[in-house]
């Protein structure tokens, strides 16, 4: 029983990790006042790049680095359009996703059906084999530990560090931040690039560890769920972690019930679960007495142009 429970928890965490990584990146982007709806496209770019580089060079480390770079390259395009050329952020984000879907399936066409070794696990002899605690805390993919550490890192950065405070100031009031001498556009570029890096990393986790395969359009809406998670978490890092694990749970519940045939419904109906859950959660958060809107960065989605 314990073993099954431990195994269940581990699968929940690995299903949640790509959501967590992507949502953490987007959280920082949104805190700086920018809404990048292209998370799905950046994740796909990361997934295909990570996979292609790993297969070609045999190095997963290089694959992950290139995946992050691919995510950043996509984010940079978004930055040039929205921050330098002041294009509409919603439209540009959509363009990024459409472009990412197309480009990734073009690049990935030659890599469909290739299998690779999943990422190395953190195995410490003698400790990983301790009952319950051993398999629960050790022996996982390094990116899972990285995602939890990054949650703490982002929380600390936003709350305690000076650059983090500047970033929040830029997101809350770009005009004032500008007038006391901060370079609003530069700060936003940094945030957008970080968002791309994290989305690329999330994509790499999917194609290198979670499946590990390249399948066309393999993110299956996870980029959009990550966007919803940021709203659900009311722009707080630790709540993103909670939300991501909740969604990981929903995903695993759906997969397990399909495998075990718990409910007498077609498998497609169970597959709707994560999407329906996203809508429900968004509704509850928006309708509830939590005053979500007050937490949203005040300048979210507003273009900024310094008056020179």
């Amino acid at each position, binding site marked *: 029983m314990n073993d099954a429970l431990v195994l269940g928890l581990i699968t929940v965490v690995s299903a949640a990790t790509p959501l967590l990584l992507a949502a953490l990146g987007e959280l920082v982007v949104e805190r700086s006042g920018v809404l990048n*709806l292209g998370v799905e*496209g950046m994740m796909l770019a990361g997934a295909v790049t990570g996979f292609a580089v790993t297969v070609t060079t045999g190095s997963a480390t290089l694959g992950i680095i290139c995946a992050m770079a691919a995510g950043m390259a996509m984010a940079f*395009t978004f930055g*040039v*359009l929205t921050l330098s*050329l*002041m*294009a*509409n952020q*919603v*439209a*540009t984000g*959509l*363009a*990024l996703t*459409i*472009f*990412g*879907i*197309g*480009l990734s*399936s*073009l690049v990935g*066409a030659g890599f469909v059906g290739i299998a690779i070794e999943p990422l190395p696990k953190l195995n410490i002899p003698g400790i990983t084999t301790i009952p319950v605690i051993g398999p629960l805390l050790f022996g996982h993919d390094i990116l899972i530990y990285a995602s939890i550490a990054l949650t703490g890192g982002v929380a600390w950065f936003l709350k305690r560090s000076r650059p983090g405070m500047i970033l929040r100031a830029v997101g809350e009031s770009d005009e004032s931040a500008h007038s006391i001498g901060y370079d609003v556009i530069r700060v936003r570029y940094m945030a957008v690039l970080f968002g791309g890096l994290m989305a690329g990393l999330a994509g790499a986790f999917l194609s290198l560890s979670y499946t590990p395969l390249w399948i*066309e359009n393999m993110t*299956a*809406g996870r980029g*959009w*769920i990550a*966007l*919803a998670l940021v*709203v659900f978490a009311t722009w707080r890092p630790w709540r993103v972690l909670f939300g991501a694990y909740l969604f990981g749970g929903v995903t695993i519940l759906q997969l397990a019930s399909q495998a075990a045939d718990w409910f007498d419904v*077609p498998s*497609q*109906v169970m*597959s*709707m679960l994560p*999407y*329906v859950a*996203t*809508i429900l959660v*968004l*509704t509850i958060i*928006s*309708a509830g007495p939590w005053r979500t*809107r007050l937490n949203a960065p005040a300048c979210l989605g507003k273009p900024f*142009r310094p008056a*020179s």
Partner: protein
Amino acid sequence: MSFKVEKRQELDLRLFYLTPVLAVVLTVLSGFLLFLLMGYDPFLGIYYFFISPLLSSYGLAELGLKASPLILIAVGLAIGFRANVWNIGAEGQLTMGAIAGGGLALALIDVQAFWVLPLICVAGIIGGMAYAAIPAFLKARWDVNEILTSLMLTYVATLFLSTLVFGPWKDPMGFNFPQSEMFAESATLPIVLEGTRLHLGVIVALLVAVTGWVLMTRTIIGFQIRVVGQAPAAAAFAGFSRKRMIWLSLLTSGGLAGLAGLFEVAGPIGQLIPSISPGYGFTAIIVAFLGRLHPIGIIGAGLIMALSYIGGENAQVEAGMPQAVTGVFQGLLLFFLLASDFLARYRIRFEAHTAKRKEALAP
């Protein structure tokens, strides 16, 4: 020499309508580079993709066939985009329209009467509207983000269609393929051009675009939509209801997307299958922007995006290029369009270092 960027007092309308052309040219040029990078003869690639589909009457008919759903959906979406309501789940509403209308067609499969076709069209519209009503209700009632809800519903709709054609609606004589029975003659759109697949939907799409144009420019409701989008505070002051705009734009775009979905299954496909659209609902977003949110512009933009689909198929058959090139082109086109918009909204002024030159250059 240095340069300075300043906001134009007024949008440069000439440039505003010229930049879509610039974006198309830039996309074709980058297509040239892309083909070169992929190891194809770039001239031949451009020819297969953008020119040869236009040289046959079959190709032109296919162009109209693929442009119709794009135009139908984009005209609806443009209304919402003008009012700052972002329905990006048109693909889901298209699917639901196909399910509602197609389901009715299956129920009436033995009926041979003239009223079947109009009836399933109405069912398609209602199906799309009802599905768009979900994000509309959530947005109007609790301000739930319509971008995320409408998109999530797209995944749900696709899964729902797949549930039906793999399950209860599967053709019992269909060798277990996931598809419904073929619709009856009375539930199939008549062909308008003999020997092609071009059906009545293309005429409906053009009529809808013209109606949309009249609605936006000649009626008070069109005026309200534009004010709500451009100056929400002024709209509130004038008493235009934001909620009404949310409902209006989502129901209109949902209904038109539903009709487009019904046209696909009652037209070229003729039955319900798991995948009924190559992403028309998403491509229509690009069509709406490329057409400058203007119904007449949308007709032209719809034809251009339809060419990207047909060109992609053509290049696949003729040169073995992957179909994904279409998606890359579509994304690039929207990028270039958004980037070149900058030219219409801002002025770049080059300044020489001497004051005299500066004065001479100033208008």
